[in-house]
Every structure is written in structure tokens, then in C-alpha cells.
């Protein structure tokens, strides 16, 4: 163990973050227009009240079990591990959740909170459409009006998810400003919230945004890591050597990492989208290649120009196509508690095919970035070591993208 590691263990208790104002070291906080400050204070107070309320927790646990279908299995990918010839790889099967991804863990929690707060209308931003579908789903489940903002470009790329949201009763609003992708959808959702702040609850889909969202969404997603920790101890009798998860905003990654943060021997790898390669500039990897700034209510690493404008991102996966990242990841990077790496579009596609053919599990393209890095990492490790990968979502939504990239007509 290195000196750096020992110093870190003495000085940082990661479970104490954020502070009362939502700061993870220099990151996070609350950078919004004044009109939203009261709404954020109201939300923070409600969340603090209900997170310690046993009746609320029981309702959340019941929905996770009976509506989402938890616990999700921890699956040993034996054939794939043996073929790679290194560490044993376990997959935390969030793809088996209702609606096919980890996103539903968070939307169930926030919808429950919205209904306790008496809000009759929920809004959301979405990129690939997974968070939009998960929000439309819980809105139907709780009988709330639902509006989903989606960049016009993504509306066209993800038409099946758009129809799915409409079937669930949601209104999908195409956003035509800026780069017409996820970041602009988030701007538009903020504008809706500022206008309809009295009756509307904004369900943010990741661990970004102003305080309390990064902490609240994390808390709803830590079910991933708490289950995985218990499951791996049951199967292996010891903690894993490494955790791997993809990072767009970073909600599935923080959900897996957080319950292991005080376990010094567990290495953590967040995998960003390197797009066509970091060197080309066409990527979505703010932790690997960006610098700190302020966007969407929090300070974090961003993809930005020298003069502070937010710049366009590129990734084969719409869910990772975002210029920022959750502030807790920025903090974990600076503390060197987690490592942030990147996988290219091509590496992700290769991993997509490998897992599909080798294990009969078709991963989302977002998840495929984590798998690509896990495969590399496993080969550098011994067969008596283990890796847990967050299999954050299933790949059905991506088959048209894969077909198009490979010149196949479906």
C-alpha cells in the first residue's frame, strides 16, 4: 500500500459528504437563479425529513421489491471471464430492473417524495430516453402529470423510447435550442421548473444539478452497491478487488461505488465515453479531459472552451453524451479514491458484441463502455481476483444504432 493511500485513509471519511450546503470539497453546491432557491430549500427539507422516516423508507423498499423487481442478481460471467483469462467478472444485473436500467431506482424514490410533497406534476430531462421512460413510468404509477424534455436530435435518434413515453401518458417536448441534446433538455427543464415551481417536481436523472440532487439521487441509487456488497460477500466470502461502472452523469457508478468507499482494498474505475478518441476532441469525457467549472447548478468537471462556453460532446451512446459529471465524482477523482478512464465508441461496440455472444446478455451501449474497460482490467489481474461491473442497462434500445453503424438494415 502506498503512502498516499495511507494518508487518505486517515483524513477522508467519504460518507460525511456533502456538507450541509451540498459541497463535495470544492465541487457541488447550488448555483441557480434566485427563483429556484426556495424550491431547493423546500426539497432539501422534505428529503431530510423523509430519508429518516421509517414509513417512507418502507414504502420505497416495497416499491423497489414489488415494482422494480429488486434485488437484482449478481451474476458470475464465467465464460467471458475464462475467455479473457484473468480476474473473475461479476455483473450486477440492473438491466433486469423494470424498464431495463438502473434509472428506475431513482425515479421511484423521487416520485414517492413528490407525492409526499403534494406535487401534481413531474418534469424530467432525457438523453437516450431511459430516464424519460423511467419517469413516465412512475408518473403513471403515481397518477401524476408528466412532461419530458428531450433534445430534438435525440427525439429522432430514439423514436422508440419517445413512443414508449407517450404510451405511458407523458408529453415529450423536443428541445430546439443550443446543441439540441441532453444538456439543452436540462436547460429547458430548469426553465419549466422556474415557471411552474409551485406545483411541479423536477425529477433529475443523474447525480448532477444543484444540491440536494447529487446527494439525493446517490442515496436512491446506493441500493446497487449495498446489494452487490452483500451478494459478493455471500458468494466469494470477501470484498471484490475492483468495481467498474460507466460514467455519464455518473448515477449508476456512484450507486455502486458509494457503499464501498470506506473499503480501502476495493479499487474503483469510472469509465467515460472517449467517443472517437480523447485526442480527437470528439468525446464526452470531462473527468479525463475537461476542467472544473459551473453548469446546471453545480461546480464540477466540464467540457468547455477556453472562454468558458460549454462545448458539444460526442459519444455513440446518447446516455453518456453530456458535458458535465456529478460533483461527487469530481471530488473522488481529486482525492484519488476512484480512477476515471475512458473507452472509445469502437471499444464499446466490441464489448457489446462480446458479452452478447459469450454470455447471452445484450448490454446497453452506455454499459458497454464499462465492459470494455473491465475486459482490459481483468486481463491484468489474476483468476483469484474479482471485479464487479455495473450492468446498468439492457441493449434492446440500441439495436438500431448498432445496425446503422455496421451498415445493416433491420
Amino acid at each position, binding site marked *: 500500500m502506498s503512502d498516499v493511500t495511507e494518508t487518505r485513509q486517515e483524513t477522508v471519511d467519504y460518507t460525511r459528504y456533502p456538507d450541509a*450546503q451540498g459541497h463535495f470539497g470544492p465541487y457541488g*453546491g*447550488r*448555483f*441557480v*437563479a*434566485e*427563483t*429556484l*432557491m*426556495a*424550491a431547493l*430549500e423546500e426539497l432539501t427539507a422534505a428529503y431530510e425529513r423523509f430519508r429518516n422516516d421509517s414509513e417512507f423508507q418502507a414504502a420505497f423498499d416495497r416499491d423497489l421489491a414489488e415494482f422494480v423487481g429488486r434485488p437484482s442478481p449478481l451474476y458470475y460471467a464465467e465464460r467471458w471471464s475464462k475467455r479473457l483469462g484473468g480476474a473473475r467478472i461479476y455483473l450486477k444485473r440492473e438491466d433486469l430492473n423494470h424498464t431495463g436500467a438502473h434509472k428506475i431506482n431513482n425515479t421511484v424514490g423521487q416520485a414517492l417524495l413528490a407525492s409526499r410533497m403534494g406535487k401534481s406534476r413531474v418534469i424530467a430531462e432525457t438523453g437516450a430516453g431511459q430516464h424519460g421512460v423511467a419517469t413516465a413510468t412512475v408518473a403513471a404509477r403515481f397518477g401524476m402529470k408528466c412532461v419530458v424534455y428531450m433534445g430534438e436530435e435525440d427525439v429522432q435518434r430514439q423514436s422508440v423510447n419517445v413512443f414508449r413515453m407517450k404510451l405511458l401518458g407523458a408529453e415529450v417536448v423536443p428541445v430546439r*435550442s*443550443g446543441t439540441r441534446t441532453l*444538456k*439543452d433538455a436540462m*436547460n429547458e427543464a*430548469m*426553465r419549466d421548473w*422556474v*415557471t*411552474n*415551481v*409551485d406545483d411541479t417536481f423536477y425529477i433529475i436523472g443523474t447525480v448532477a444539478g444543484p444540491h440536494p440532487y447529487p446527494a439525493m439521487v446517490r442515496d436512491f441509487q446506493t441500493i446497487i452497491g449495498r446489494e452487490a456488497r452483500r451478494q459478493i460477500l455471500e458468494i466469494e466470502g470477501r470484498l471484490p478487488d475492483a468495481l467498474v461502472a460507466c460514467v455519464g452523469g455518473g448515477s449508476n457508478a456512484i450507486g455502486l461505488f458509494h457503499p464501498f468507499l470506506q473499503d480501502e482494498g476495493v479499487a474503483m474505475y469510472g469509465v467515460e465515453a472517449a467517443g472517437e478518441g480523447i485526442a480527437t476532441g470528439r468525446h464526452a469525457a470531462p473527468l479525463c479531459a475537461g476542467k*472544473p*467549472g*459551473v*453548469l*446546471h*447548478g453545480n*461546480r464540477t468537471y*466540464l467540457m*468547455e472552451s*477556453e*472562454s*468558458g*462556453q*460549454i*462545448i458539444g460532446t460526442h459519444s455513440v451512446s446518447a446516455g453518456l453524451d453530456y458535458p458535465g459529471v456529478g460533483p461527487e465524482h469530481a471530488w473522488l477523482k481529486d482525492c484519488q479514491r476512484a480512477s476515471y478512464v475512458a473507452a472509445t465508441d469502437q471499444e464499446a461496440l466490441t464489448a457489446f458484441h462480446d458479452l452478447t455472444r459469450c454470455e447471452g446478455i445484450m448490454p446497453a451501449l452506455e454499459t458497454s463502455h464499462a465492459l470494455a474497460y473491465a475486459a482490459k482490467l481483468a486481463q491484468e489481474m489474476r483468476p483469484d481476483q474479482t471485479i464487479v461491473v455495473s450492468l446498468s442497462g439492457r441493449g434492446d434500445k440500441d439495436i438500431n444504432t448498432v445496425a446503422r453503424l455496421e451498415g445493416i438494415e433491420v
Partner: protein
Amino acid sequence: MNRIEKTFAARAAEKRKVLVPYITAGDPKPAVTVGLMHAMVEAGADIIELGVPFSDPMADGPVIQAACERALVHDVTLRDVIEMVRQFRADNNETPVVLMGYLNPIEVMGYATFAKAAADAGVDGVLTVDLPPEEGGEAMAAMDAEGLAPIFLVAPTTTGERLQRICAAARGFVYYVSLKGVTGAATLNVSAVADKVTEIRQASDLPVGVGFGIRDAQSAAAIGAVADAVVVGSALIKRIEELRDDEQRMREAVAGLLSEMRQALDAQQTETA
């Protein structure tokens, strides 16, 4: 006394209201902005709010979003905007200029570097939409060191305790956002605005400006009856957008609307005097 204080004191002595136009710097192209600022002063503007274009203007409606996009086609940076103020100051040393924008360009430039450059160029105040006083300690200290006034927003949703905190941090004037929503949004409720302005006056000795939703001489006069300053933005920018290919007519249209507002505000003061 800085330019903002002088302006409010002078107008108050004349029993006239302060008229504050907003334009986005560099819209529709950088060469237009300084001339437009002078034209607005001639038409009766007392303070100029100069928008710093940002890629993600979360608190702005479609009109100012489009203005930002037009300016960013020309890569207008925060340094370019400061340079425009320096050029404006070559011919006008009286009219206060307040920069209005979002935090990230300032953060990237560095608070101290920004504050020094802005003050040297003749900027008087800075309104950073997404910087509430709770997060603003370091930025405010840097501005204070250079004599720049940090200007803060108060919203219809601002509660009593926050109002105290904002008023304690604010300099220059307090900017009341007249409605829940983004810039350029629909309707004004003048009596609700009057109630909130009264509340702000109890919390602060600073003058109170009101913006969002003021679109013509009539709404300017209605707000002028209850506030110290009237801010108009989207209504001007709509004219800039419509006439963006004809600089002469654009300047006339902007000046024309401001003149109407100036007259309506002054006429009202005469009536009530």
C-alpha cells in the same frame, strides 16, 4: 460615489425613474454593440445592462437564448465584452454599465483577473444570474477589491430570511424579478410587484429595479409607479432580431422603444409630482 449611486441619486433628485435597457453584447454582431449603447443613452437610458453571451442561458427565455446564439457565432468572449465597455467609455464616462451573465465564463477567467479587467475598462456592476450570495463569497470579495458592485436578484419566491441575506450582500441596486419564469415571459401583476417592492424596501436602503415582463411604454410606466428603476430586455432584443440585417433601422427601432418608455416614465412623474 460610484456611477450607479450617482445615477440613482441624480434621478431621485429630479423625481424621475431610472431606465435600464438590456442587450446581449455581440448580438447580432460585435461591431454593432458599442454604437447601440450610445444610441440607447441618447434615447434616455440611465444604466446599461450588457449581457455576456453564454452557451447555456438557463434563466433566459427564447428571445435572449437566440441573442446568445447569434453572438456566439462570432465567438464573443467575456474579454471581448469587457473591451466593448472600454470602447464605450472613450466617449461616455457617466452612464453606468452592469454586466449580466452566468458564472462559468467568470470562473474560467478567474475572479480576481476578471474583476480587475472589468473595473479597469469602466464596468460598474456585475449581475451573475446563477451565483446566489451563499456561493458568492470569493467572487464578491474580488469585486469589492476593485470597486465593482455585485448586483443580486430577488424573486417572488424569495423568503424573508433569504431577502435579508441578499440585501446584505447587494450593492448598487436590488433587482426584483417580477414573475416566476424566464426572461421575456408573459404577464405582469403590478400590485403583487408593489407588495414585494415594499418588502424589499423594508430590508434594504438600496434602490429597487424591476425586470422581466416589461415590454412597452405602458408596462414600463406601471412598474415605474412602484419601483426606482425599470429594466427592459427581451422587447428590445426582439427588434434587434427582426432588423438584424439593417443596422441603421435596428438602432432607430431600439432607440424608438426606449424613447417611448422614457416619455411614459417622465410623464407619469410629472402627473404625480
